[in-house]
């Protein structure tokens, strides 16, 4: 109960902090020169980030997700946000009190991206695009997606693809209507539809995975993805490393600012909270991201704990072995695990070690966390066993127990009792550590929050929700471990 009150206080503080608002006039922009001296938000890896970073008269803020950039403008931490003109349709702009101060003059050629040297796919894409331009399907596709108020429309796709065969693997780096976005487990938007057209053209099935930019590039290089989508502009630099077909469209930038004349959100605080929950959880069935992510997190955590605990037993036995080479091997292993950041270990296993094995990302994540957990668990076992005085073993042996019986009946029950709090701590830090699996395209609880955030642009509610769920999970995990512990009832 006490923990709950603390948690609620914490949430209330964040909510209050986010409610602080400013009262100046709406920012006016007429040309890019007006950006001088302003705090400008954009997304890391985007073309705007590249061109804006060349200017030293602006204070550039780079974010991983568009939702975070939006939140920074709303919170008054930045003045203007530079993103694709398709970002935020009219309804969303009104909802957030944002307006487009100006649009950029330059248009950028945009295409989906292939691996360097994969001419087969690129040529197929070019042929397909030519055909689509001619027969008008490209125009109807663009008309369908790239226009105002696309969010009000029911999302659907009518492009049939093969069900069997070698799938065309698409890495989507942006969950952003109308370019490419998720509703439930299905992908919509102009680029997924282009990919579907390509798959149909090649008579292959298609599958979509959500990556962030750097992971997508690694996946592409390691043949774990064939296509990367996400409003990728064709630049010279990118063309050196990757292969682009002809651009399917030319997009421009929009400069979003906070519309100070817009009315503040209406209704009481409860109505606003209700509305926010509706938007983040109910609309498009978004709560399913949370429940699915929750299961993924639980699944990875529990299996990694089980596997890691067993590996830890072996590692602990090696650490205490009489043979020197065994002790050295264990020491090197522990040294390696202690020195490598969990994320790096995960990425190395996924993109290097198991790259060609066809193992699914969840299995790789379980292995990575188990390897890491084994080191900590072995340490916990060792510490707990060392805490039991040698006299206990001697007393057991002297009574006539065998070595194994002495260990199992006398030393182990006492060691478990001592080691349990340490072990529980390891498990909970593993649970929290799993929040990085999104990097290898696993949709866990954290990534579920990110997905919702990138669709609703509400940075706070999904985060708080995920926080609360992690707290509950940690608490439940503690209870579960206590229940799963062999009872130390002696006779």
């Amino acid at each position, binding site marked *: 109960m006490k923990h709950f009150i603390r948690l609620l206080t914490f949430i209330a503080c964040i909510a209050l902090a986010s409610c602080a608002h400013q009262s100046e006039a709406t920012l006016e922009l007429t040309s890019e020169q007006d950006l001088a001296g302003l705090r400008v938000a954009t997304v890391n890896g985007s073309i705007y980030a590249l061109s804006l970073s060349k200017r030293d008269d602006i204070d550039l803020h780079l974010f991983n997700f568009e939702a975070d950039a939006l939140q920074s403008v709303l919170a008054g931490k930045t003045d203007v946000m530079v993103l694709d003109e398709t970002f935020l349709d009219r309804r969303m702009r009104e909802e957030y009190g944002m307006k487009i101060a100006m649009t950029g003059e330059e248009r950028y050629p945009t295409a989906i991206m292939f691996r360097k040297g994969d001419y087969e796919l690129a040529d197929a894409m070019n042929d397909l695009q030519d055909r689509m331009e001619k027969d008008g399907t490209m125009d109807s596709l663009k008309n369908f997606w790239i226009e105002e108020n696309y969010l009000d429309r029911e999302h659907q796709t009518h492009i049939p693809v093969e069900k069997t065969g070698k799938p065309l693997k698409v890495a989507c780096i942006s969950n952003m209507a109308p370019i490419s976005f998720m509703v439930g487990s299905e992908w919509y938007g102009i680029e997924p539809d282009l990919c579907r057209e390509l798959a149909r053209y090649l008579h292959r099935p298609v599958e979509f995975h959500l990556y962030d930019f750097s992971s997508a590039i690694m996946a592409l290089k390691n043949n774990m993805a064939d296509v990367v989508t996400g409003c990728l502009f064709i630049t010279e630099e990118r063309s050196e490393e990757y292969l682009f077909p002809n651009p399917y469209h030319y997009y421009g930038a929009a400069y979003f600012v906070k519309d100070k004349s817009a009315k503040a959100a209406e209704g009481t605080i409860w109505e606003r909270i209700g509305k926010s929950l509706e938007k983040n959880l109910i609309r498009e069935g978004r709560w399913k991201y949370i429940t699915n992510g929750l299961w993924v997190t639980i699944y990875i955590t529990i299996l990694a704990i089980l596997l890691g605990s067993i590996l830890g037993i072996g590692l602990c036995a090696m650490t205490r072995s009489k043979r020197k080479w065994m002790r050295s091997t264990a020491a090197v292993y522990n040294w390696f695990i202690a020195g490598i950041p969990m994320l790096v270990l995960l990425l190395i296993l996924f993109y290097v070690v198991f790259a060609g094995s066809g193992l699914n990302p969840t299995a790789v994540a379980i292995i990575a966390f188990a390897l890491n957990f084994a080191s900590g668990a072995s340490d916990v076992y060792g510490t707990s066993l060392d805490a039991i*005085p040698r006299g206990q073993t001697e*007393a057991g042996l002297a009574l006539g127990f065998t070595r194994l019986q002495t260990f199992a009946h006398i030393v182990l029950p*006492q060691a478990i009792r001592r080691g349990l709090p340490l072990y529980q701590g390891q498990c909970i830090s593993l649970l929290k550590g799993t929040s990085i699996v999104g990097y290898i395209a696993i949709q866990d609880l954290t990534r579920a929050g990110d997905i919702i955030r990138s669709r609703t642009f509400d940075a706070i509610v999904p985060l708080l929700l995920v926080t609360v769920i992690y707290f509950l999970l940690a608490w439940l995990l503690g209870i579960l471990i206590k229940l799963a512990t062999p009872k130390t009832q*002696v006779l």
Partner: protein
Amino acid sequence: MITVNHLSKTYHNPDGSSLTVLKDINCTIEKGEVISLIGPSGTGKSTLLRALNLLDPPTGGEIIFEGENILAKGYPVHKLRQKMGMVFQSFNLFDHMTVLENVMYAPVKILKKSMEEAREEALSLLRKVGLAEKADVYPDSLSGGQKQRVAIARCLAMNPEVILFDEPTSALDPTMVGEVLSVMRQLAKEGMTMLIVTHEMKFALDVSTRIFFMYDGYIHEDGTPQQIFIQPKRSATKAFVQRIRKEVFEVHGEDFDYPGMETSINRFCIKYNIADKKDSVITLCQLLMPVYKETGDQLTVRISYSELSGETALDFMREEDNEAPARLKEETFRKQLLSICKDIIEEPTARGYRVKFLL
């Protein structure tokens, strides 16, 4: 029952050096014998005991137990240990079990006795060591003496043929030594075969049927308590059994720390289990210190205790004296002193005139 031939034990250190603790041990132990192993520290008493049940396996020789060489390959060591109980210096009770569970555990798990039977037996053993009412508490809440008595009961629960006691009273507060020794006396009286490593000379003398005096990795002398304590044949044995525990205080001038000396005397009496004489010794010091102070600054005070005879003495001695201080000759004062001590012996020595107060 147990025959030991040419037993040796060498420890090899990682740095290549080695230490031979047992050199050549030969002995025979018959059923019903109570054997005390005595001797200076570091002569292998505990090592020998722990070699017998293979907790510290010997490196040479043989041990024959009930006709079988227990050092032979494949000998079921745990079966041997079921018949050869051990009581440790540090009790080693199982901290996660109640007193009753400690006693019941091995019979239930090893001898496969039923819970009811094991409980009945455990309770009767606890009654025997006087701890039946502590059956359901955890060892944490017991005193050292109580813990050791539980350990003895736990050992007896396996119905062993011989019990090895490894310094069973060394870790105890002196006030608790008695309760453990009385349980052991009772066992000896009932005919239990016992091997005891001990520093309690009086106890060894009273209870043992035989004494092994261990010295330098050998059983240096082996005999009845009478032979070992009263007529030792070998000089090392004699020096050990007749050794006198003592503490010397050099008193120099006004700055001498007298309260500190009282503390030291206190500790000495507790350490050698003569706490009953503590008050007399301190009263004597309080009476005599002013007497000697009147006549000069330099003084040597010595408290001594012979473990074997139980004799305690307090000596006052000064180099420049050739007789006792005049005050000591006054009849009333002397009477007062003799009401505290048994006797006063005066004698000139090479290091001055000594007045010995026997307590």
